[in-house]
């Protein structure tokens, strides 16, 4: 049944994937199997995206399927069965109210085992500092869609540095308008203009691949 779940998930057959997952969680150890299979499926969807076979609409549909299945799977899991490979504070920077890129990335990052603390949109720089102090993450993800986000990310990173927290974390920036040059300009550690790349690089920053 795991193989069928994997196949229907990766093939974007939503109804079938949800049906199999519902059946599978009722079996012994089934919930853990559903979680593992869905994570594997999300990884495969990300790989297909980076290979140019899948597009943003598939990432969105896969994220939605993942959330739907997790809603009835996670309550069935024991605490120890949901392992985290690290924590990330994630938000859209000051001045930018967009959330779509952040949200697509978030579900893929969670599926890869990252514990994501989503602190919202249009965030004053200090909100990042507060969240870093509170959650002590290994990673900070900053998202922006519009071009003003570049300066906003730069200033946010400066404020994190002034708070003495920059050396404790790795920072990845994401969004439609970021690039290598922008990453160097703002002083981040990695950049991604799509969620699949973002998750792959986040895992690298965590030393997990």
């Amino acid at each position, binding site marked *: 049944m795991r193989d069928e779940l994997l196949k229907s998930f990766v093939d974007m057959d939503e109804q079938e994937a949800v049906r199999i997952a519902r059946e599978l969680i009722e079996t012994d150890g089934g919930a853990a199997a559903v979680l593992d299979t869905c994570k594997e499926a999300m990884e495969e969807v990300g790989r297909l995206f980076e290979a140019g076979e899948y597009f943003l*609409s598939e990432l*969105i*549909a896969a994220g939605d399927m993942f959330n739907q299945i997790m809603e009835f799977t996670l309550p069935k899991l024991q605490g120890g069965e949901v392992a985290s490979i690290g924590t990330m504070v994630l938000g859209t920077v000051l001045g*930018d109210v*967009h959330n779509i890129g952040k949200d697509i990335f978030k579900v893929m990052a969670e599926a890869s085992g990252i514990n994501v603390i989503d602190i919202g949109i249009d965030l004053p720089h200090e909100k990042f500092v507060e969240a870093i102090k509170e959650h002590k993450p290994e990673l900070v993800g900053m998202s922006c869609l519009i071009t003003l986000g570049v300066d906003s990310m730069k200033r946010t990173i400066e404020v994190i540095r002034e708070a003495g927290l920059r050396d404790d974390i790795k920072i990845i920036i994401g969004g439609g308008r970021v690039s290598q*040059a922008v990453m160097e300009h703002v002083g981040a550690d990695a950049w991604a203009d799509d969620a699949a790349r973002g998750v792959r690089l986040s895992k690298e920053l965590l030393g997990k691949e």
Partner: protein
Amino acid sequence: MPSPEMLKLAEERAARYRAAIELKEPDRVPFTGMGGDVVAAYAGISSYEYCFDPEKSLQAIIKYLKDFPSDRPIGGMSGIGNAITQLAFLDYPDLTGLFAMVDGPTNDILGVDYIRFPGREVDEYSSPQFIGAEYMKADEYDELIADPVKFLFEKIVPRTTRNLRDLGSPAALATMARFGMHKARSGAFMQKQAAELLKLGYKSEPASFFLAPLDFISDNLRDTVNLVKDLRRYPDKVKAAAEALLEPMLKLALLGKNIGADMAFIPLHLNEYLSPKLYNEFYWPTLKEGILRMLQEGMKSQVFFEGWHDAHMESVLELPAGWGVGYFEKTDVRKAKKILKGHTCIMGGIDVGMVIASTPAKLDEYIKELLGEMMPGGGFILSPNIGNLPRETPIENIAAVYEAVEKYGKY
């Protein structure tokens, strides 16, 4: 009154632009200029002032254009399109144009839910922004399909426009009266602005506006995430809705002919989201039909291919040669030229991220190489890949680009 020299300059600039659209080599590569939030910053005003104070906004534009002249007047980015209300008032062609662009004061009057303005909903140094939401439920597709204009007016305008929530109420009537008074004032100001810009050698070029029907459904009605799910859950309804919106959208775009527009701007959004299979089935048919029908009516198109358009490049060749301008964001214009040379005028080439983060020397070198590849054969308009340079863009980097265009842009 503009001097004869400036009138001549305005003609030269317009001719340069026109030649590129006609796939010819002009005297120099046409350059749109690079505007946006930086125009306000350069004049020392906030983005809030730029959006809400027309006189300050005009003075900022004049100051910037004097120091950074280009072939198009950069209008800044002081408003957000409002296709919902335009389509809702489609049967009143003398009014639809008034709804086209929501500026700061208009938004204070209407209260549009999906627009954020600096100094209002976001920081006074931020940019005006569009942020869609789910204004139509999935079970309302049939109503949209049956009569799009009626549905938009009766259901969507009240949901998206706070001060028109209760259509027919004194509050809504007062809103429309205030809207009319504001538009009379801003219309007079637009004429003044056009006259001022002509003194600097820029003709105002009326433009029309068309949205891919599926983009309209996604951005304005269902929200992108829902629309993407709808494609799999209710494919026939999505297709029928796109087809139902085509005629109203075309009628709206062609109204531009009344003000002398011969070019429709079409900003794409979902193109990057869709696989070729979904693109060709749901998105491209009504977009293509729209471009072809406008062309039959003498109106070319300028399509902004947002994000990566690489997967769909071949479909552009289904349009007749000389159909218009392909404006590319992330797709490499050199790659676009290889596929579309002699068929499509290509626009873009300057990555805004690079203008923000690079150095004058590197930008000079970059523009030199880019123009060396893109200019031969004509049909190229140099432009930033996104129309908005942020406030902190280094001025020396902007200057380096303008100087490089003069140095390397002559044919």
